[in-house]
């Protein structure tokens, strides 16, 4: 697929509610459909449940119409006609990204996204289109299409961020879009590879500081970072055919990225074939999992199915990319989430004793476990996952 390995699209978001509110009324959705990523931020106007429901309807309409191949203008007019007469508070921004790097931007009511090439703002031209709704008139929506390159970024900030600090001594006119742009450029100048996660978090934190920690208008931010992919190889399970032991070991040895081996037998095979030692670090793990080991040339060696199972549970309960905790399960989650391309090579040789019904715990079949884990990493964490059974 063109451009598949050219760069990875990292996306992350952050938000803050107004002081004394727990749930935001705006909505942010991100979905991956094969090689395509769709992001939508939407607001329904006003506060509370009503605004939230309106925002959810808008976001899901934008997402689904775009997915079905509607043009941005058709998407915008469907939304605005649905809310005809009440479209006053409606705002939405959608970013439609293809694996080739082709990006389609649709903006309505929100501050224009900041698009950066390296540290410089890239002035992508917007096309203004008028959308007419029954009865109440004409609305301006803005469209842009461009092809992103590695190290480009798109930063969306809601009104709440752009106006943060308004009326304070330091920022009497608010932070403004230019203030946000300068801040983002400074962050990238400080650390060229700053992640989408960190950048979104820093923007929202700065906006909160601008507000002197009493947020007056809900804040939403998402960042898209097109960057060179970080790859990790995860090997778990002995190959079905023993004749493949050698090629598995060579795969680990020659892999152009980090490597994780989950499984004692697998680690033994790789160590034997490469003539390396496996040193178990005999220390109780806070997560209750068997201890990890060290092997030259391998980032981390862990036990197999118990560890993968706990990793799956922990990831299922994780939203965003922050995984706290001191255990092996958290370490593995952090390792996986810090990569973009995750390649699983799963050995299908089954130890019949693992399926013994008298075992005190039920051991899930490795291949099912890895399939579920792969789906989670792909759908929730937007990773590019490759799965191979040997």
């Amino acid at each position: 697929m063109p451009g598949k390995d050219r760069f990875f699209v990292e996306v992350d978001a952050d938000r803050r509610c107004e002081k004394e509110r727990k749930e935001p009324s705006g909505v942010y959705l991100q979905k991956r459909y094969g090689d395509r990523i769709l992001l939508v931020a939407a607001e329904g106007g006003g506060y509370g449940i009503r605004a939230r429901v309106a925002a959810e309807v808008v976001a899901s309409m934008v997402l689904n119409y775009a997915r079905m191949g509607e043009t941005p203008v058709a998407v915008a007019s469907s939304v605005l006609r649905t809310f005809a007469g009440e479209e006053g508070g409606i705002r939405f921004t959608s970013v439609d990204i293809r694996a080739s790097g082709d990006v389609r931007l649709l903006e309505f009511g929100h501050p224009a996204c900041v698009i950066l090439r390296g540290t410089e703002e890239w002035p992508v031209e917007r096309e203004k289109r008028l959308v007419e709704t029954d009865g109440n008139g004409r609305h301006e929506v803005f469209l842009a299409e461009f092809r992103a390159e590695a190290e480009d970024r798109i930063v969306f900030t809601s009104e709440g961020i752009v106006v943060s600090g308004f009326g304070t001594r330091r920022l009497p006119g608010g932070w403004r879009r230019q203030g946000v742009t300068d801040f983002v450029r400074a962050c990238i100048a400080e650390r060229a590879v700053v992640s989408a996660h960190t950048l979104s978090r820093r923007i929202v934190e700065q906006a909160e500081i601008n507000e002197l920690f009493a947020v007056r208008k809900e804040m939403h931010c998402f960042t898209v970072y097109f960057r060179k992919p970080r790859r990790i190889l995860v090997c778990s399970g002995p190959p079905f055919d023993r004749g493949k032991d050698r090629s598995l070991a060579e795969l680990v040895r020659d892999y152009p990225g980090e490597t994780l081996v989950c499984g004692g037998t697998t680690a033994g095979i790789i160590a034997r074939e490469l003539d390396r030692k496996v040193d178990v670090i005999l220390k109780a793990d806070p997560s209750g999992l068997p201890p990890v080991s060290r092997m030259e040339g391998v980032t981390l060696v862990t036990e197999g199915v118990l560890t993968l199972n706990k990793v799956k549970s922990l990831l299922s309960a994780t939203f965003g990319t922050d995984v706290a905790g001191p255990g092996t399960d958290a370490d593995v989650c952090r390792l996986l989430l810090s990569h973009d391309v995750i390649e699983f090579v799963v050995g299908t040789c089954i130890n019949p004793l693992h399926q013994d019904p008298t075992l005190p715990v039920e051991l899930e079949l490795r291949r099912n476990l890895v399939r579920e884990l792969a789906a989670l990493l792909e759908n929730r964490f937007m990773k590019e996952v490759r799965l191979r059974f040997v």
Partner: protein
Amino acid sequence: MENKLSVKVCTGTLCYVMGGAELQLLESYLPAEIAARVDIKGAPCLDCCNRTDAGKAPFVQVGDRIVAEASLFKVAEVIKEMLKAEGKWAE
């Protein structure tokens, strides 16, 4: 330096779920004078879990002997026995 008796505790999946987790505490369980005479290490899998003739998990290897259905007590007894046999320890 005295040659220590090698002890390998299996930390593989099957041994772990069959009660091997507590075997990680072996070093602190052994009396100091015995602990000083053994070299305890973990092993990712002792390869006994694939064999039908090795007995039941969890496994620990003491010297060249495989201890099946290992418990802290059972392993400590085997260690004492082997140290005695080698003349390295007397009760």
